[in-house]
């Protein structure tokens, strides 16, 4: 490991995506600086570091910029090799990547839209979300974490389903992830948020709740995930 490594995360305290990066660095004991971005007023550093997408998170490692949370997680695992977040064997690695993508592509969007739509549209999104969550719940089974005994890539990717979606369901007045339909996921959520590294990285629930309450009207208008 190089001396005097400079590791910065361009992030937002609200964002589950930058949380993923911070959790990975925490799990590996990598000291880093958190640079809070105002997404309504993006810094020159953010615009220079991620000129194409202009999004957080961005990892800055000794001046090199790595955008996109999934890509950052692989970079972190390859650069700091203690406490691996990906399995060793190629097949298991491909499965971890598969489930991460499944969560990103099939779960997060449907869960988000379930909160901000109404009537038949809401029913449709809730059905989509339920179908995907059922598959995920089955995949987890009796295991403590998707990564087995310890948190891995899939657990990190699923973080939205823990604190954030809990808060959003409360703000939207819906109950999608319940113990009856998704016993494994509910157990996973409890275990995940209680883990030391996670607790240290999570934003305070009451502040998250208050912020989403205050942004509710704006989100209802645009449905945008950038807030």
């Amino acid at each position: 490991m190089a001396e005097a490594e400079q590791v910065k995360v361009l992030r937002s305290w609200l964002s589950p995506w930058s949380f993923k990066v911070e959790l990975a660095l925490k799990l590996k004991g990598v000291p880093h600086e958190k640079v809070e971005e105002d997404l309504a007023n993006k810094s020159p550093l953010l615009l220079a570091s991620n000129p194409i997408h202009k999004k957080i998170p961005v990892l800055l490692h000794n001046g090199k910029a790595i955008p996109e949370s999934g890509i950052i997680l692989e970079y972190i695992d390859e650069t700091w090799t203690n406490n691996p977040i990906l399995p060793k064997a190629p097949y298991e690695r491909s499965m971890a990547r598969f489930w991460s993508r499944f969560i990103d592509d099939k779960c997060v969007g449907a869960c988000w839209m379930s909160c901000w739509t109404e009537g038949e549209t809401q029913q449709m999104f809730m059905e989509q979300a339920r179908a995907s969550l059922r598959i995920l719940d089955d995949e987890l089974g009796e295991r403590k974490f998707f990564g087995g005994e310890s948190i891995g890539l899939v657990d990190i990717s699923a973080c939205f389903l823990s604190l954030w979606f809990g808060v959003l369901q409360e703000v939207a007045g819906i109950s999608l992830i319940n113990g009856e339909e998704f016993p494994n996921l509910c157990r996973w959520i409890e275990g995940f948020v209680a883990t030391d590294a996670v607790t240290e990285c999570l934003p305070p629930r009451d502040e998250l709740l208050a912020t989403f309450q205050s942004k509710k009207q704006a989100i209802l208008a645009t449905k945008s995930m950038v807030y």
Partner: protein
Amino acid sequence: MVAAAAEVKLLGMWASPAVRRVEWALQMKGIEYEYVEEDLANKSAALLRHNPIHKQVPVLLHCGRAVTDSLLILEYIDETWLETPLLPRDPYHRASARFWAKFAEENCREATRKAFFARGEERSEAIEQLREQLQRLDEELEGKKFFGGVEIGFADLAVGWLAFWLGVSEEVAGFTAMDAKKLPRFAAWMDDFLRVPVIRDNLPPREKTVEFFSYYRDQQLAAAAK
């Protein structure tokens, strides 16, 4: 180490760029495999068993286990057969290759899909978006023959569908996104990429591909109109 042909099977469809991408990777590494053509209108029991969630090709079967999603398959191939590496060694350059692969696979594909299927303003916005994306790819090629450098690599295989299927899409749907004069580096890359033997010898026949996508587009538009 070359795998026995029976050990590696690829479920695919002849016109699909995602399937070709996997074939390019297997051939670059000299891996022998059995290719199984799927009829996507009548999916085989094997396809449904090995990719129950997405029910899509390509599916790579290795020692009986299934890997799905073409970019994930490429990573699997690279991690299992170590000769002729697709990804560079350095983590930062690997991240960069993955970034461009994602850009081509998600952003460019989405814009192309809209340009192909949409009408009116949605279509013109998509074409504009695609032009900007091609510009970004052109800029990234500054000082390089391929995205992978001197030889093709992971990013080239991921971006590669544009070299052949973009032209097909433009012809079928009647739009122009690519401008060789404005994007000389990307234009040169398209030519150089298609000239690489493994690529050149592993492309679907152009006329047949145009016919196929023309029929596919007509079908989809008719279904959407109902």
